[in-house]
């Protein structure tokens, strides 16, 4: 049966950019590819484009399926489609895999044209600002002068926020969901443990594992397991697993005893089999480095004085990795600048992952906001 609220079968596309991109680190990427998907149609005056920015492990595959029997639709399929909160009957929605990614855009596993080998450790460290620059070139490529909205959760929300600072004339609305104006020390600490797990894996080979025919699976797996703990709330884990045993009785062993362990190992294994370790390092660093207030002596209100967009800021009460207090900091800075802002603090049990969940009220808020976007 065809799901009329699905964008249906989608096909990724690739755009090649031969103009060098100067990165914030000082490095220059001579040329690069961006892989992207689009849903809906760009209108005649090209005013209905919406950019969806992905988070740490996301991709350009935001909505739809690759085949009729594809069991895994895009990562935000519940949010995007005909009649959905981000309604593809009205909006031309773009999903793009960021630079440094491992799903088709130029990244550490791509071939470095200068050497003919994979970039590996030589691939530069990329930042949220760099991604926004690259996304703007994709917008140019697609003929989009100004976005009706840029939308993202978590690290994606940081990109939406950065868009309002880098290109205030090219974004009319920013939807900043479950995000933060920078990471706290505790939040960066989780990233550091994840990176250490990867870097100290003997099969990492300093980032040049491709030539050795190995993958630092153990490191990636532990990094992902740690991440998953922080994306869920204590209550959500309790409700999902509690102290449920894997077997009928305890085994007095270090194999899987509790259901929670089974879940974490499964998630870790799955991720280690499909994600690139070098990409993981760079994504977490992009999170760490994002701090628009830094150039303004830590004053976020000054940092946002350049922005002109209208904002919807959303946070979730049980999200402890990107807490409501961090979203309120963004809201305060927007208020200080007298910008148009709506802030919804949603009661949710799922922790940080709530931003991906199909909660009715959450979707109603996004839908209502998008319905008033011109």
């Amino acid at each position: 049966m065809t799901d009329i609220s699905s964008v249906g079968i989608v096909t990724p596309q690739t755009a090649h950019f031969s103009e060098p991109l100067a990165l914030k680190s000082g490095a220059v990427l001579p040329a690069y590819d961006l892989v992207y998907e689009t849903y809906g149609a760009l209108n005649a005056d090209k005013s209905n484009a919406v950019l969806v920015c992905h988070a740490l492990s996301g991709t350009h595959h935001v909505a739809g399926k690759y085949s009729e029997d594809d069991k895994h639709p895009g990562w935000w399929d519940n949010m995007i489609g005909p009649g959905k909160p981000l309604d593809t009957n009205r909006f031309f929605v773009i999903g793009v895999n960021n630079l440094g990614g491992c799903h088709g855009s130029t990244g550490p596993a791509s071939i470095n044209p200068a050497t003919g080998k994979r970039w590996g450790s030589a691939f530069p460290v990329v930042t949220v600002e760099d991604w926004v620059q690259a996304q703007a070139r994709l917008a140019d490529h697609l003929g989009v002068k100004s976005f009706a909205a840029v939308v993202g959760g978590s690290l994606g929300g940081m990109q939406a926020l950065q868009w309002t600072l880098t290109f205030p004339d090219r974004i009319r609305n920013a939807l900043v969901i479950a995000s933060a104006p920078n990471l706290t020390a505790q939040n960066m600490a989780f990233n550091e443990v994840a990176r250490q797990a990867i870097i100290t894996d003997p099969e990492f080979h300093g980032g040049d594992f491709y030539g050795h025919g190995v993958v630092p699976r153990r490191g990636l797996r532990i990094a992902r397991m740690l991440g998953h703990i922080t994306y869920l709330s204590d209550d959500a884990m309790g409700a999902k697993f509690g102290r449920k045993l894997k077997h009928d009785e305890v085994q007095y062993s270090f194999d899987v005893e509790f259901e929670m362990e089974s879940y974490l190992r499964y998630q870790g294994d799955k991720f280690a089999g499909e994600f690139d370790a070098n990409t993981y390092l760079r994504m977490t660093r992009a999170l760490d480095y994002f701090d628009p207030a830094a150039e303004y002596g830590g004053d976020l209100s000054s940092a946002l004085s350049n922005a002109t967009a209208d904002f919807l800021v959303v946070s979730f009460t049980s999200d402890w990795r990107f807490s409501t207090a961090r979203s309120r900091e963004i809201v305060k800075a927007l208020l200080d600048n007298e910008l148009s802002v709506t802030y919804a603090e949603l009661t949710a049990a799922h922790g940080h992952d709530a931003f991906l969940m199909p909660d009715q009220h959450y979707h109603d808020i996004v839908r209502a906001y998008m319905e008033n976007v011109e």
Partner: protein
Amino acid sequence: MTHVPAQAHAHFSEAAAERRDFTAIAQWITPGAKVLDLGCGDGALLGYLRDTLNVRGYGVEKDDANVLACVKNGINVIQMNLEEGLSGFEADSFDVVILSQTLQAVYQTERIVLEMLRVGKEAIVTFPNFGYWKHRLQLFSGGRMPVSRTLPHQWYNTPNVHLCTIADFDAFCRERNIPVSERLVITEGKTIHLFPNLLGNLAMYRFGQVG
């Protein structure tokens, strides 16, 4: 700018016809003022003030359904609990802070009034007068808690935790040296000058520097 749906404009003017304090509040607001409405409900007052006086405004609201209604109505709303104070707002960052028929439903009455005066150059507070003669009559002759258009709830389901009379609120302001710049008492849209605490249904107070 975000689009405001046509039906929202109609809703704002209907609400103003229904809520007599809207038009009275509007008389105290300068066109183009920056306004903060605490406990803004579905944003009807802000919408009305925007449509009639071109104010720039934000609402504060804790209830999910009301926040959603504000978003639908194209009103900027900040979801938070007033009882926690207004720490997210800078001192003197608004021309006017309004608390419209919400005073009686807050626990931290004193804190909120002081916060309004910190954040706003001016503040407006309106509340149903518990001393209104019809309320007194219900209590005196029927022996029951008053129920009226301004106090529509029963004693067991009312959100009102701090009902007061005009005389009570006058004393509250006097004891805290909160300067009242104007007071207006209305019943069914008419201004009451004589025996306001007895004949007035709705009390409106204006604080802070005028003009």
